[in-house]
């Protein structure tokens, strides 16, 4: 089960992207997300795809790894593709078959939407492939500092995120064991018909939730036993430093953004 989850796994190749400040990477990801929404012509798409794929290649991680991150979303993407294809009625009528009609605008919108999603997912995988969860949460804590004005603790948000990331593999492992245990008691999720699947899910969700709460309680106790107190000033294990490369990386995205807007 864990092997199917690509996101959240660091692939160490020690490339220049790995060495960048995580705050720079997070900011660039946000800019990239905005850029993908703004894309509207083929030239935009091609230009952004080329630049993003070149950046992905420069991480020395196989491109296929990034594209594997899209795999879990394939059905959602197919649904969005079909949704756009059938419901968008602009442009010329290309094909009419009973109540089903395809318009040129429908095809273009459907292709662009899926393309946009693929770009976003593959490129955001760059952040998790090249940044350890510890660095990521520290960057987040740093970037959320302005929230202190509204009495929201960035430390609490960062801690929640780091614990959630840390426990994804553990909870998946436990879920897998419980799935197998219930299959041994005659409730194999793979073989059950759809209506029974829902019933069998209760036999899975209850123990998984109980395990998650038990783990949470153990974690709280062990942290408190070692003197942890939320909101207390703490020294940092990693020190974040902004280098010239981080500025260049940020500039690349600002330029892409400007290009897309100018187009």
């Amino acid at each position, binding site marked *: 089960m864990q*092997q199917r989850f690509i996101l959240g796994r660091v692939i160490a190749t020690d490339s220049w992207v790995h060495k960048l400040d995580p705050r720079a990477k997070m900011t660039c990801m946000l800019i990239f997300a905005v850029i993908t929404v703004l894309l509207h012509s083929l030239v935009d798409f091609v230009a952004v795809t080329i630049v993003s794929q070149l950046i992905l290649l420069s991480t020395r991680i196989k491109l296929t790894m990034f594209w594997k991150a899209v795999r879990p979303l394939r059905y959602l993407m197919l649904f969005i593709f079909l949704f756009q294809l059938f419901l968008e009625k602009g442009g010329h009528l290309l094909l009419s078959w009973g109540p089903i009609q395809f318009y040129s605008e429908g095809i273009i919108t459907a292709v662009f939407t899926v393309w946009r999603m693929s770009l976003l997912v593959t490129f955001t995988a760059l952040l998790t492939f090249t940044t350890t969860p510890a660095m990521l949460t520290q960057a987040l804590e740093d970037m959320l500092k302005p929230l202190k004005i509204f009495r929201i603790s960035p430390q609490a948000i960062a801690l929640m995120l780091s614990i959630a990331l840390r426990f994804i593999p553990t909870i998946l492992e*436990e879920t897998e*064991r*419980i799935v*197998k*245990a*219930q*299959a*041994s*008691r*005659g*409730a*194999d999720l793979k*073989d059950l018909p759809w209506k029974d699947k829902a019933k069998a899910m*209760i*036999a*899975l969700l*209850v*123990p998984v939730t*109980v*395990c998650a709460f038990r783990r949470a309680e153990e974690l709280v106790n062990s942290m408190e036993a070692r003197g942890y107190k939320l909101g207390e000033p703490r020294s940092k294990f990693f020190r974040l430093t902004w280098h010239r490369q981080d500025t260049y990386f940020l500039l690349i995205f600002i330029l892409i953004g400007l290009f897309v807007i100018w187009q």
Partner: protein
Amino acid sequence: MPIVFNEVSHAYGGNPEHLALDHVRFHIQDGQFVGIIGPTGSGKSTLLQHFNAILRPTDGKAQVLDFLILPGEKIHEVKRLRQRVGLVFQFPEQQLFADTVEHDLCYGPMNFGATEAEAKLLAIAALEQIGLSPDLLSRSPFQLSGGQMRKVAIASVLAMNPDVLVLDEPTATLDPRSREEFMTLLHTLCRTQNKTVIVVTHRLDEVLPFTDHLLVMHEGKLVFEGSNIALYEHAEKLPTWRMAIPKPFRILQACEQMTNNPLANHVRQDGTRATFAPSWVAEQIHLLFQTLQRDDSGGVPCSNDSS
């Protein structure tokens, strides 16, 4: 029908780099109490998931009762196999989910086609087998103590009335007394109901008093198959398989050296099962020294003298 594994290999995700079982070959008779031992990461848990086809071999074939498990082939009536081979995972208490013990115990039998009334009878019988009172049936499993929860979880598998009971580290995190009680309970099930019991553990001394047959795993390979006494004869290999020589073995080895009298020959002549339980060890020490006194009419030679 026995259980026969013939050159069974398993690579996770079909990737040869993730080979967890490497051409494993063994034979288990009906009604035996079998111990599968090995250090962490030796492939024990992967092996036991083959007994009820939760995992299938990627190479070789496994015959479990009258089911043949082959690589890549779906097994007909896999549900019937899983009913006949009850598999208890590590920390089984974590699989409990229902609002009452009764519902949890009935879950397995009802999945395998039992009516509610039949399932309830099976649930009561399973609780009694495991030494718990049927009064617990109406209680929530989450209100029980840790030991009781584990017993209920094992009873939930026993309620399916399996012919083979496979347990992964059933005594993990239990105190020494509960561990012994648990193993005795499993041994009683094996002897009184002729169930084949297969226990996976990394504590050799825990299963020795009960096992008829031992399998030792190391780095995905089966490195030993045989009786307790045969393993005793190969005890010096245990450290190379990343396992400690258990205390009863070390005590008897020392006595053997002192008396210059091989224990294995003596045990084989006697024809009884070597249990390596404390009382059995004491008896063997007594016999070893008694033989020495008969041969030597007194005096214990130093181990150096034997050379």
